[in-house]
């Protein structure tokens, strides 16, 4: 009995310590909070009648500086809302993991965030995002003003969860000082890349993204779609194991295995591609439209004015570009949904998208902006009706709430095919069976 008593006493002591620790932690937080509100109310008294709120906006690394201008312009238009910027990793997969970790803990620390086009279905299903339909209706925003593909990417189960901020599609960059007529098909690309390699100080014929990460999936979707293949069709059936897909993977293997790509092409992501490209090391490169801006940046680029852009080469079924781009979403647990919506509305509206386009070189999702003189001036791309057509017809990646799992399977199987650890036939067959398994669970 005595033993029990002392045990109880020590246990009680331990609990007390833990409890005190927890309390002191909590107290600090609350004092912090009240401190903030105090200063907030002070500024409110001095400046405006309305209460000032601070919202936190998270997005990936931005090298263009457009983000600061966007936030500054918004704060000027809305003096009662402060926007605090939180930088996230550049790798979309790592960014995704940070968001889901925060949101699954129902954290309110982030209010507004940029989401890759592949996330809305997952975030909507997991209840991480606030549906925007009521806001959209209240403010009379016409979703028909946007590209339909980009709007559809933010839709899940009949509700709109994300506003399209800018759109992206894979493009072929080429050196106008070396190439006379850009290649029309993958075979022509292989031929030209191989024969023109070495001219004007180039070391590589072609650059693409082939590391084991999301970018590999984007590149592969382009090859597969250009040969008429698909991963998941409209009826939600897996159709990856087809002769078209096998042919596309074989073409990728041919390019990755050729001697006109860098030896370490299997480590290439967008940043490596961009660095090599603006150093003037390559004749052709596949990348997103943003590289247009860095190519013509006189401070960094050695290929200013020598860069042409066209659609990606065609396979048997024509040319295809993967739909990329970013949406803006609101955290379901945000404490300031109205302020957050104001920011989202501004950012994805004409004014905000114009800043993103002119400063950041990203393609707007609002159709009307392509007729705007300043936007057209920002990049020859935006004035090019061909480009706008590519954007409108870009091929989406599979739309499913378990996209991270699907992408994981694709990354591994494709990477295995490119390193030569398995044949194209095996890759297609494995993709088929593994995705089927994942979807049936």
């Amino acid at each position, binding site marked *: 009995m*005595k*033993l029990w008593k*002392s*045990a109880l006493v*020590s*246990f009680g*002591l*331990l609990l007390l310590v833990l409890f005190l620790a927890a309390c002191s932690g909590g107290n600090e937080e609350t004092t912090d909070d009240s401190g903030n509100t105090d200063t907030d109310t002070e500024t409110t008294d001095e400046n405006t009648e309305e209460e000032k709120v601070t919202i936190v906006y998270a997005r990936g690394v931005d090298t263009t500086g457009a983000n600061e201008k966007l936030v500054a312009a918004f704060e000027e238009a809305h003096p009662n809302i402060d926007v605090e910027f939180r930088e996230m990793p550049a790798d979309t*997969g790592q960014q*995704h*993991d940070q968001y*889901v*970790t925060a949101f*699954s803990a*129902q954290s309110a620390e982030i209010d507004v965030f940029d989401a890759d086009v592949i996330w809305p279905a*997952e975030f909507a*299903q*997991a*209840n*991480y995002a*606030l549906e925007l339909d009521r806001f959209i209706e209240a403010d009379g925003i016409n979703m028909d003003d946007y590209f339909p593909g980009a709007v559809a990417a933010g839709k899940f*189960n*009949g509700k709109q969860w994300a506003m399209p901020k800018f759109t992206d599609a894979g493009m072929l960059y080429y050196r106008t000082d070396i190439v006379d007529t850009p290649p029309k098909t993958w075979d022509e690309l292989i031929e030209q890349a191989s024969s023109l390699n070495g001219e004007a100080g180039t070391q590589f014929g072609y650059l693409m993204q082939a*590391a*084991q*990460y999301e970018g590999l999936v984007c590149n592969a979707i382009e090859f597969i779609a250009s040969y008429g293949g698909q991963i998941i069709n409209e009826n939600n059936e897996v159709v990856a194991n087809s002769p078209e897909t096998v042919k596309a993977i074989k073409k990728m293997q041919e390019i990755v295995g050729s001697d006109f790509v*860098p*030896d*370490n*092409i*299997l*480590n290439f992501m967008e940043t490596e591609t961009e660095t*090599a490209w603006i150093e003037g090391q390559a004749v052709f490169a596949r990348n997103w439209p943003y590289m247009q801006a860095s190519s013509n940046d006189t401070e960094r680029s050695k290929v200013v004015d020598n860069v042409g852009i066209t659609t990606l080469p065609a396979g048997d079924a024509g040319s295809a570009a993967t739909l990329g781009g970013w949406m803006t979403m609101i955290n*379901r*647990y945000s404490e300031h*949904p109205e302020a957050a919506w104001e920011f989202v509305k501004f950012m994805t509206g004409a004014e905000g998208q114009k800043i993103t386009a002119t400063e950041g070189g990203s393609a707007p999702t609002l159709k009307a902006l392509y007729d705007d003189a300043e936007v057209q001036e920002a990049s020859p791309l935006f004035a090019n009706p061909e480009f706008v057509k590519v954007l409108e017809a870009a091929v989406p990646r599979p739309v499913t*709430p*378990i996209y*991270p*799992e699907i992408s*994981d399977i694709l*990354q*591994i199987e494709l*990477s*295995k095919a*490119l*390193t030569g*650890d398995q044949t194209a036939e095996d890759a297609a067959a494995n993709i088929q069976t593994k995705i089927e398994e994942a979807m049936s669970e």
Partner: protein
Amino acid sequence: MKKFQLNEKQLGYAMVIPSLILVFVVTLWPVAQSMWNSLFDYRLNDPTRSQKMLDANIDLERYADNYFYIGNQLEALASSASGENTEKVKDIQQNIESYHEELLSDDQIKKDIAIIDEMLMKYQPVTDSELKYQQIDNDFAVDYRQALQSYQEDLTAIAESTSDDQLSDQFEQTAGLLGATSNTILKSNFIGLDNYVKYFKDKRMWQSLWNTTFFTIISVGFELVLGLAIALLINRAFKGRGLIRASVLIPWAIPTAVAAMMWGFLYDGQSGIVGHYLEVLNIIPDASWLLSTSDGAMFSVILADVWKTTPYMALLLLAGLQTIPMSLYEAASVDGATKTQQFWSITLPLLKSSILVALLFRTLDAFRVFDLIYVLTGGGPANATESISIYAYETLFAQQNFGEGSVLSVIVFICVAIISIIYVKLIGSELISGKTR
């Protein structure tokens, strides 16, 4: 009256109880929690499986949100449909209402729905899971869910047979709403050992387990040999020994993620100097081999790990070396033993338990390798460097699949436990044999 006093034995127990509780809270509880999680089909990003449920439950937040629309939509359908369809819709409406009444017959649920309705009107999320999830009767849950699903099918069938596009759309939408509502009534997601069975058959799990084992054995092997050499070197008295000892420790002091990024640049196929010199020395076929091939990536990861943790091994062994009395070596040299003989007959046997302890620490560390690989190769290319911890991370955090991810964590735990038991057995027998001699 005798004063309350513990005897020595009781006092001893009383002293260790707090630490036992700590051990329980800090180590055993999370493991038990993981094991418990691994018995469920538990996915955070799937609202029907985002809670561990042994019995049927209802997600009141979503249910209340959906129910708010159901009445109006069915009403609208009944007025725009014609003939037997109107009858059908009215029938459905009545049935759903009666199910809803039955649900509300539970006073607690009725009260909670009222609170939630109010919160929904103000856009407030329901974060309190006690409020959000309510246990309901299993049979009732099955009935209600099946009823909603069959109504969904009925309405879809009507939508398909209706020629009026707008009306068909309307039916389609309400059908979708009913389907979504049926998903708010949750089944138990307890699946026992199914997850383990799945991973037992999963090639990727075995591959990553093999990658981890290979990585552990090779890198710890190299670290032992190099660490011992360094320890012997800095155990000797020479000028500037303090400086050497401190500088040897630098790799260990650099955070792993930083070291991994650094090695990433050194290995780079175009500008990395390590890749360049290894190529010049004909050790590797070409500079890009390091990170672009399966074998090369594994080699790179091991090399970076050996560089990083050899100092730690050296430090542990140095501590062991310093406990060996100099008199033994003096006696040996008087007897005419060479330096090599001294090493094999004095140093190694006396260092054995230090070596085992150092090996235990490093093996466990290496087996849980995560940050180095995550930053350096991300598990690629061709998934050749994916360790079991990386796989667990992918499943737990990228895919939010806590049930299956927990299985992988438990597998890591079991492997670590087996390794520890083997070493502890070896160390233990070592100590005992030392005693009896």
